[in-house]
């Protein structure tokens, strides 16, 4: 199946700062691709290049099989873009905002009116349609922000951190709405720095940091990078401890993260957890607690970058 969005070798620099470097990924119809990374990782710059706001220094963006820059208008008609900021006119009502952006997207007046009603219903905002946006809660503004990009029924939706700064309930509503869009066949590129969102929402995830795509795949594929299901977290006094000096330790385990009080390791082989645990308890350090857990995206990020996503 032809990818709806194909990104190859995308690069962008601002002066000496390389904001995005050699980013590649594809997105199929009905798929949610999560671009996960901390603030400043290059997520928004990537979306800006895909949507035509910025011209890449190098690389290609193909939308529905055609190069973006050979016919930007055609590509932009296919996509809807939801910026990270709430790009709405606060003095206008939710309905007026939707109708306005619908008209600019090419809908006739009557069509825009009808579609605005549908979108308001879908976003559960019909009862507040006439209120000025400035009187909306953060979550409601976020929903209208998404709705404005949906007016022309785009096949490809670019969502740039659509849940930043809202309460958990409002976030849940938006995630449910995004899932529904995906079920209807919309391809969604979803950037976030929330691990839970990427884990629960996205079919595939690309981990981006310092402008580089460090790894990508399904959640399971990414977890397997750390040695399947087994991740051991040791807590205790680790100051001065040197794993290089521990016999056979590095042949059996891979260090994910080490601090003065915590050591996270994954087993290299599929040995039974009890055997791994025995090896770990035999280490010449004072261990106060050991936890065995399934690796999270944060652990993957930790392994790839040496730091927590939330740092």
């Amino acid at each position, binding site marked *: 199946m032809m990818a709806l969005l194909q990104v190859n070798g995308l690069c962008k620099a601002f002066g000496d700062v390389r904001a995005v470097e050699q980013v590649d990924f594809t997105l199929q119809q009905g798929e949610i691709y999560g671009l996960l990374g901390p603030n400043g990782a290059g997520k928004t710059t990537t979306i*800006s290049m895909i949507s035509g706001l910025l011209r890449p220094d190098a690389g290609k963006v193909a939308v529905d099989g055609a190069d973006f820059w050979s016919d930007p208008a055609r590509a932009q008609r296919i996509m809807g873009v939801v910026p*990270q900021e709430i790009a*709405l006119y606060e003095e206008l009502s939710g309905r007026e905002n939707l109708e306005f952006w619908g008209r600019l997207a090419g809908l006739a007046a009557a069509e825009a009116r009808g579609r605005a009603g549908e979108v308001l219903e879908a976003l559960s905002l019909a009862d507040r349609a006439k209120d000025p946006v400035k009187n909306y809660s953060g979550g409601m503004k976020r929903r209208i922000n998404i709705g404005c990009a949906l007016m022309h029924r785009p096949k490809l939706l670019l969502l740039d951190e659509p849940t930043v700064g809202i309460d958990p309930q409002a976030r849940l509503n938006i995630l449910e709405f995004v899932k529904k869009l995906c079920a209807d066949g919309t391809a969604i590129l979803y950037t976030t720095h929330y691990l839970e969102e990427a884990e629960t929402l996205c079919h595939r995830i690309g981990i981006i940091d310092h402008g580089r795509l460090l790894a990508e795949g399904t959640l399971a594929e990414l977890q397997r990078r750390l040695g399947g299901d087994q991740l051991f977290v040791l807590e205790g006094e680790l100051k001065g401890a040197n794993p290089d000096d521990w016999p056979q330790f590095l042949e059996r385990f891979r260090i994910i993260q080490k601090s003065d009080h915590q050591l996270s390791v994954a087993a290299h082989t599929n040995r039974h957890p009890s055997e791994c645990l025995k090896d770990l308890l035999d280490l010449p350090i004072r261990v106060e607690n050991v936890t065995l857990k399934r690796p999270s995206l944060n652990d993957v990020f930790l392994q790839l970058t040496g730091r927590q996503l939330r740092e």
Partner: protein
Amino acid sequence: MLWNLLIKDLNRARRNPWPYLLNLALPLCITGLIGLVFGPSSKGGGMGQIKLAVVDEDDSVFSSFLRGAMNQGEAKKYLDLRFLEKESALAQINDNKVSAVLIIPAGFTQSYLRNSDAVEFELVKNPAQSFYPAIVEEFMRVVVAALNAVSRNLRGDFPEWLEVLEKEGRPDVRAIARLTERLGEKFDRLDGFLFPPLVGYEKETRSKEKDSGVAVNIFGYLLPGLAAMFILFLADNSVRDLYREIRLKTFDRFRTLHHRVLPMISSKVVLSMTVVILGSGILFLGGGWIFRIQWNRPMPMALLILAYGLFASGFMALLAALARSERRADVLNSVIVLFLSFLGGSFFPARQLPAFLRDHVCPMMPNYWFIEGQRGLQSGSGDVLWTVSALKLAIVGAVLVLVAATLFQRSLAKGARA
């Protein structure tokens, strides 16, 4: 699309009108304050008498006729003439007792009647006063225009008039009678132009007319200057909305919808012009009503305002594109508008400025074209000036809009932020 953008902006302005209202109220208040401080002493916004010293070095029958003409009828209402020797007249300027000194040089009548190329009055303006000297200058322009008209039409008779005036002894009454008859015939032929048929009625409210202001109103002179400046501020406020759009990311959202930058810039220019038209309506009509100004040429005035609105919008769009950030624009735009207003004659008549500015810089300022055009229309001496000014303003405005759109497109493509 332009219509949608404009309606959206007007709706936003309607729901948050304070920035616009402030810019509209200020010029009216300031015009009133300046007028009250420097201008009128009579009721109804009219101005008091202007003190003008006249030095008649020519001392001929003709110069006596000129002196007499300025010292009677309507002119006497506005001019307090003092006939003095040159030294005492200049001394009165130094003492700030007169607004200007008019010197009719020796040989003026001879030069005029001999059709000499260089016939000159000398007008010395009081540098301590702003508006009265400028009004006297305007008045003298009218006198010069009238003398030119007389010269063009009666040039053929001038040698004979000169002969009569120069004749020693008793005047040649027959010659004067002959010339007067010929003059009368010429006036007869011009009758249709000089005295067109009039239809009118007269209300029996003469007692009230005394209070209803006078034909020359100092506010009518002040208001165009201040309006020129506040129209720039109004345009700035409207065009500055581009920054708000960039800051709110609505501009980015617009750019993701297969549109180029020009329509957005154009929509702000149209918004700005709409606001300028509304604002000018309030300024000129409201100002006219409040200060009892009777605008003489409303249609040309409106066209000139329209052209100036385009210039103001284009100029502000260009500044917005050059400033590249709202914070920088906050500082830059106000300074530039004030400086431009100073050079264009919003604060003082441009003719009061130092010679280099007055002769070489001010005439290059588009707001000067507007202000002088409006004042010319009001004083009745600017028929050619206003059309040329309007055309220049419209062309410059359109070019500035295109340049601004190009600059915005470039800076946004490079990732510029508000």
